[in-house]
């Protein structure tokens, strides 16, 4: 068995309706599981960028790229370098008491997170960062009672002057 690793795929696709379904449909059809997904317009309104995080071995990685390349609306697709810049955003609602408030705020401070809503007994925290940082923050908040949370897919860019796609 080849080694299973987490990796990030980024692709430029036509900014048209139905394209996301075509991409995710291919994953379902071929039995590949998506961990996280982010879509948004790019520097050109003709294209969207889809960033997908998932786990798999070399076979999965190669098949995915080859199969994605066959989709007519996918213009460019690549597995990003391991050291690419990855960011994820999370909103997390946690309950507090006078006894726990200070500890939570300290965590917010250390993680450079932000309190964006604050009512009697609950606060909503915004955290941005590498997925592992988000995971760590969740772990930290668990004992206080997480009421609700949601996190976006990972967005990622490679370092330096490397770009995925040149629009010219």
């Amino acid at each position, binding site marked *: 068995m080849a080694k299973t690793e987490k990796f990030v795929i980024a692709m430029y696709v036509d900014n048209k309706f139905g394209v996301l379904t075509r991409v995710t449909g291919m994953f379902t*059809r071929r039995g590949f599981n998506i961990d996280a997904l982010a879509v948004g317009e790019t520097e050109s309104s003709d294209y969207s960028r889809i960033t997908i995080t998932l786990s798999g071995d070399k076979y999965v990685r190669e098949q995915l790229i080859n199969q994605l390349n066959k989709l007519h609306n996918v213009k460019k697709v690549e597995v990003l370098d391991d050291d690419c810049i990855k960011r994820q955003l999370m909103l997390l609602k946690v309950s507090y008491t006078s006894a726990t408030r200070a500890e939570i705020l300290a965590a917010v401070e250390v993680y450079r997170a932000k309190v964006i809503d604050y009512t009697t007994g609950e606060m909503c925290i915004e955290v941005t960062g590498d997925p592992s940082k988000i995971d760590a923050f969740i772990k930290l908040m668990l004992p206080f009672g997480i009421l609700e949370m949601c996190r976006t897919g990972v967005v990622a860019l490679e370092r330096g002057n490397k770009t995925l796609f040149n629009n010219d």
Partner: protein
Amino acid sequence: MKLKGSEIIIRTLIEQGVTDVFGYPGGQVINIYDALYKYRDEINHVLTAHEQGASHAADGYSRATGKVGVCIATSGPGATNLVTGIATAMLDSIPMVAITGNVPCSLIGKDSFQEIDITGVTLPITKHNYFVNRIEELADSIREAFAIAKSGRPGPVLIDVPKDVQVAEYEYEPMPVVEKQALPEPEAKDIEKAVELINASERPYIYIGGGAAGLGLGKDIVRLADKIDAAIGCTFMGISAIPDGCPRFLGMQGMHGHYASSISQNEADLIIGVGVRFSDRATGNVAKYARSTKIIQLDPDSAEINKNVVVDLGIVADVEHAFRAILEAVESKAHPEWSARIEELKEEEERIEKHIAAKSDAKLSPKMVFDVINACKPPRTVIATDVGQHQMWTAQYATFDTTRRFVSSGGLGTMGFGLGAAIGARVATGDTTVLITGDGSFGMNLNELATAVSHGIPVVVVLMNNGVLGMVRQWQTLFFGKRYSETVLTDRRTDFVKLAEAFGAVGYRAGTREEFEDAFKKAIASGEVTVIDTLIDKDEFVLPMLPPGGSIDDIITEID
């Protein structure tokens, strides 16, 4: 000039070189049919009995010629009836364009009468599809569809056009026929590596698939085999790529492949795969497939390299160019030991066949049926099939004098494919077209006899009637303790001769070799749609058989 959308559709088809379409009218394509009426002198429409028949006809049309087959259906059930045909084309990489009507844009998404999201439904079974909700994009979408269907690894494309787009008007300018997108040229280092592997090989085996069948590489394949002293085998889809009579050609390998072809592939030290995908039916258990063999794979689709088996060298490029480059560069070499071994295997195969034949006291065996067909068929005859035992017997026994003459659903294995496909192939080629079918498969879409009769498309149907679903029964015999669950059809009491006559076709019944020969010759000569009810025994088996998931060591050559 300003034209209605429906007319733009037909004008664009004509502009793209389409001369025949297959379809069925309905509420949301009336406008398209009105335009077809207007252009009836330039484009021939074949009305089928069922939209599924139209989809298979477009597919058969394409298989027999390499042209893009076109079918048309209305929204809702018309569109969903195309689904099996589109999937069949997808799994065998057949270029096809399907055009469907849909409800007007204002009614989309409201569960309107005969509304279905057919682009959603066909997403996994098309190479690409379009929902054209703007008349401005109509003509170019159709052109793009043709380009996609025939470029690279071909496949089906669907275009869904809401009714209001069909009646809207827009400027139309005729454009030239779209070109296939050029495939990348093979890289010199890959050709070098291929040549190195071939020069080092002592036991080479050239393995031809559907990706090579349509390319006209037949002679070059034989030249390479002669040059490097190789055996040639093929997948199911590669049948008819190599003209008959080539002594190096061992026929199909795999689950029901020829003994010599399967065994020699396993014993080869190098497989040169051309347009093959190493599917489960071809390889059996991949873990045990060609264990000590190096593999070169030539394919236009990069996703096929290392998908099913890990290869030593994958060349993603224009297959013809890559193949010819290899052919020119390899050393001429003789491998007397390998040749002797191939001869030995061929003799063994002959012995097995004789042994099987000797055990049978049948008045009309499948082998006899093909002996007659092979001897009596005119040059360039197309042989179409349905799916089941008769299909495998065709693959094993039928001979072909030129490429694109074998029309059969390989990847999807679609029972009910044959009659529609045979009609399409006959319309496309004008050559004698024989459909080999079984009583199970024929029962699925025999309504298309009406199409053949009404359009004077003289398909000769050889209905191998054994009163059972023979292939499933064969598995039940071998692997399910002879518990023949729902595979016995004798209670149906269908009289296929009367049935043919009821459709306005000619019917014969043949229970002996002589009767069959007589009926077949008459059918070929008559130019009439003919059904020959060909009575064969229910316990005829397709042999040899490599059991599903088995390896070459498990090959079955005899059943008691």
